[in-house]
């Protein structure tokens, strides 16, 4: 049975699309057929992050409206076997995503894929609610920063009250915390909330910590999910997170500053 995973956050710009691309790619790399759906109607960007922006012909809303078949709209990823992308529409019509329409498309995707990753738009409006409504699991992407943490708590409230699972009284949506843009040096300087601080406040299980890294911008510049860069710390951190998502035990890495030499420390140098 296919699992539907929503990648959500409330706040914008925290790394939802970057994380959706990385985690979707990671699942497919491990042999699970996966589709990543862009729910951000009007502000399509998953295609750019995945490097397939020039191959978009039909989109999610076309499929809902019966203007294209799912096969016509799905874009096969050229790098990773078993990975597909369903792009968002650029329409300005806010009501383009209907509950029945989304349900119909998801039901069809469930027949073909092991994992359906829903890349949510920012905010708590219709698009964000549609992205999380059918979810079995939720990855809440959070930056160690006050507004992001508060908004994450808000989105957790919505998951617990307005998702299909909540409405129908089924088992709750399984929640995961993904802390991104983590800077261990600033944490030890007391300038940034620590992993433990954020876990304390949100009180949901930790899926992974992605260190702040220049490789993430490089990856999006090139349209290649950062998880494909196995030398990047952020890529390795996403790989660990995918393994944990699949139930494997992986120790958390990159939580501390890189070790510095004795002389560098003596002179007060910071990496």
């Amino acid at each position, binding site marked *: 049975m296919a699992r539907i995973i929503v990648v959500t956050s409330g706040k914008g710009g925290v790394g939802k699309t970057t994380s959706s691309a990385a985690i979707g790619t990671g699942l497919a790399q491990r042999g699970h057929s996966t589709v990543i759906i862009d729910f951000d109607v009007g502000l399509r960007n998953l295609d750019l992050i995945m490097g397939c922006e020039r191959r978009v012909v039909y989109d999610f809303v076309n499929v809902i409206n019966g203007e294209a078949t799912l096969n016509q709209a799905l874009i096969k990823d050229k790098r990773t076997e078993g990975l597909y992308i369903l792009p968002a529409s650029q329409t300005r019509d806010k009501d383009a995503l209907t509950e029945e329409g989304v349900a119909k498309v998801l039901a069809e995707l469930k027949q073909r894929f092991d994992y359906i990753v829903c890349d949510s738009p920012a905010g708590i409006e219709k698009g964000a609610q549609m992205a999380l409504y059918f979810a079995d699991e939720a990855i809440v992407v959070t930056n160690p920063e006050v507004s992001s*943490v508060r908004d994450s708590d*808000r989105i957790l*409230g919505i998951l617990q*009250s307005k998702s299909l699972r909540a409405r129908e009284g089924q088992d709750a949506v399984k929640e995961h915390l993904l802390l991104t843009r983590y800077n261990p040096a600033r944490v030890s*300087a007391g*300038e940034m909330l620590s992993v433990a601080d954020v876990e304390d406040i949100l009180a949901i299980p930790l899926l992974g910590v992605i260190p702040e890294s220049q490789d993430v911008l490089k990856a999006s510049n090139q349209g290649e999910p950062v998880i494909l860069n196995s030398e990047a710390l952020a890529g390795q951190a996403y790989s660990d997170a995918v393994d944990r998502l699949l139930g494997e035990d992986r120790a958390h890495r990159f939580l501390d500053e890189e070790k510095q030499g004795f002389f560098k420390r003596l002179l*007060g*140098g910071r990496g």
Partner: protein
Amino acid sequence: MSFLDYFRSKRPASSAATAKERLQVIVAHERGQRNQPDYLPAMQQEILEVIRKYVPVEQDDVQVQLDENGNCSVLELNVTLPG
């Protein structure tokens, strides 16, 4: 911290600690409001209008709170009348 830092004066409480404290307060407050029904603010407003017809009271003088006790809910209304 470098060797030289030991000679500098003590740093003030970290900003991360302040952030955590502020978050704990606001998140707890908002979680409390999360489960209240959507009609509560509108009802509070209408109750306020009715009371105002007879007594001059301010918005803050009327507190409406809904508490759940098992299978029944208690609507608590606190009005501070001017002395």
